[in-house]
């Protein structure tokens, strides 16, 4: 990305320049702020051999893995939340259909700990989990470690440092300083742990908006390589205060993901058949009607001027 202070790029440019075949890519966001727009652009650009990391692969990774962009998945909960399975991923794990998918599996806190260690340049993160579970047998990168202060044992997980993190936010300035509110997931830790970061925002705002509330800045421009403005870029996930989760889509995906033909036609129509996410958004038409919530504003706070 350019070294000047504006990092604003189109999604096409950002994905082309930042995401490389073979990269480990984390599109994070826990239910909230999952950047489907970036996932779709990765599919459009036919990236290959990616290792995809996410706590909850969600429908976005089912689509991406169904489209063949990835050879490995790092995760902690593999499902369609509130609905059931991610069938494209299951086909590859259970039957290598159409090809195998390597997996590396943790628990939620294990994945969070991996991002924290990655963001902190720690060689491991300790946690009280995994005791007597079979997870350490399934994944040799989960190991017991003794406390130097007691006869307590905890488990350690290794750092995760993705080549690329893609985080969606509500508002950012052109330098990439970003405000997030609502469910925070591990957006911050993922961004700090990655070599390269794409921030995708619902709204590009002036620096003065961000700087009016520096405690709301979850990601500083310091770690950001590109800023993409992509309104409604999370559908069918959501952006708190901007639009609702399209729960109906998650239910509908169950039948689509189950059937490789239907999955392929869906990708053809909705991803390859749209040149940009803006087209995808338009194509949804009046489906948006039920997804736009009434407003509920926060009470502001006074930082004071100290001159």
């Amino acid at each position: 990305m350019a070294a000047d202070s504006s990092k604003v790029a189109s999604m096409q440019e950002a994905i082309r320049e930042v995401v490389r075949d073979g990269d480990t890519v984390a599109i994070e966001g826990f239910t909230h702020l999952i950047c489907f727009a970036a996932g779709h652009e990765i599919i459009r650009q036919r990236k290959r051999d990616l290792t995809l990391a996410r706590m909850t692969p969600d429908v976005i990774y089912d689509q991406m893995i169904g489209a063949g962009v990835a050879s490995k998945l790092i995760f902690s909960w593999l499902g369609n939340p509130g609905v059931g399975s991610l069938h494209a991923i299951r086909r590859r794990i259970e039957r290598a259909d159409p090809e195998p998918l390597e997996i590396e599996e943790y628990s939620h806190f294990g994945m969070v700990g991996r991002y924290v260690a990655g963001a902190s340049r720690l060689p491991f993160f300790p946690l009280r989990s995994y005791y007597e579970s079979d997870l350490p047998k399934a994944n040799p990168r989960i190991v017991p470690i003794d406390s130097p202060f007691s006869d307590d044992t905890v488990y350690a997980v290794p750092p995760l440092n993705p080549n690329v993190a893609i985080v969606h936010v509500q508002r950012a300035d052109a330098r990439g300083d970003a405000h997030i509110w609502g469910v925070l997931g591990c957006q911050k830790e993922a961004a700090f742990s990655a070599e390269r970061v794409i921030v995708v925002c619902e709204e590009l705002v002036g620096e003065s908006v961000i700087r009016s509330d520096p405690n709301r800045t979850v990601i500083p421009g310091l770690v950001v390589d590109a800023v993409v403005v992509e309104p409604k870029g999370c559908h069918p996930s959501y952006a708190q205060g901007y639009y609702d989760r399209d729960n109906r889509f998650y239910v509908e995906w169950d039948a689509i993901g189950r059937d490789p033909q239907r999955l392929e036609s869906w990708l053809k129509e909705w991803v390859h058949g749209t040149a940009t996410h803006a087209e995808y958004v338009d194509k949804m038409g009046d489906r948006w009607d039920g997804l736009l919530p009434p407003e509920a504003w926060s009470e502001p706070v006074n930082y004071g001027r100290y001159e």
Partner: protein
Amino acid sequence: MAEALTERAAAAKATTTETMIVAAARQLEGERVCFVGIGSPNLACNLAKRTVSLDLELVYEAGVFGAVPARLPLSIGDPTLVTGAASVSSMFELFAYYLQAGLIDVAFLSGSQIDKWGNLNTTVIGDYANPKVRLPGSGGACEIAINARKVFILMPQTKRSFVEKIDFVTSPGHLAGKRPAEWAGAGPTIVVTGLGMYEFSDDGVMYLSSLHAGVTVEQVRGNTGWDIEVASELRETHPPTAAELSLIRETLDPDGTYSR
């Protein structure tokens, strides 16, 4: 008298899931901080907050404390859990400072397989490397099982889910009765299925403590993959009251998404 009859009539029509939800909700009496799962556990917690445990604080793994959901959330990270909540923090803080710290009194878990010690499998049916069925995996379940002070298990009961040996231990229960003292949590204390309720002996072994209305011990044995122990004083689950059912049906889950 007429009211009692109405109650019975309503109760007779309670679905299996409604019976499970109500039984679980009643167990939340006296509890303060509850780690809520999506689906039936969410209904049980929200029912308890309106009946036996008015001050119950709901914690969601997405980072939400003190949620006041204005609608039934489909997912664990639904926006309705955020608006109006007391606090929303990062998942690191939720797992480290709330769950691992021992602030969670009760958490709900479920599983595709359970054994007589309450160990749960949500990872895989068959061999891990060559799975017959790939299940979702742990999510937060493993650390919840270890760190929540008590675990309530809510799951359907069949011979395929209540098994002698589970294929994979995702979430440790009472192991084989030797749960270490340094774990914050006491492990599973209650299991509620469509047939009855179960508790655990001092040795960490599950036993049938209460049968739901109309269910027999033989039915329970027929749906359990090991020789299940039965309490010497076996109770009958008090059926859902009309008030409980109307809360579920009219307020909490009017579409019946999780309760029918």
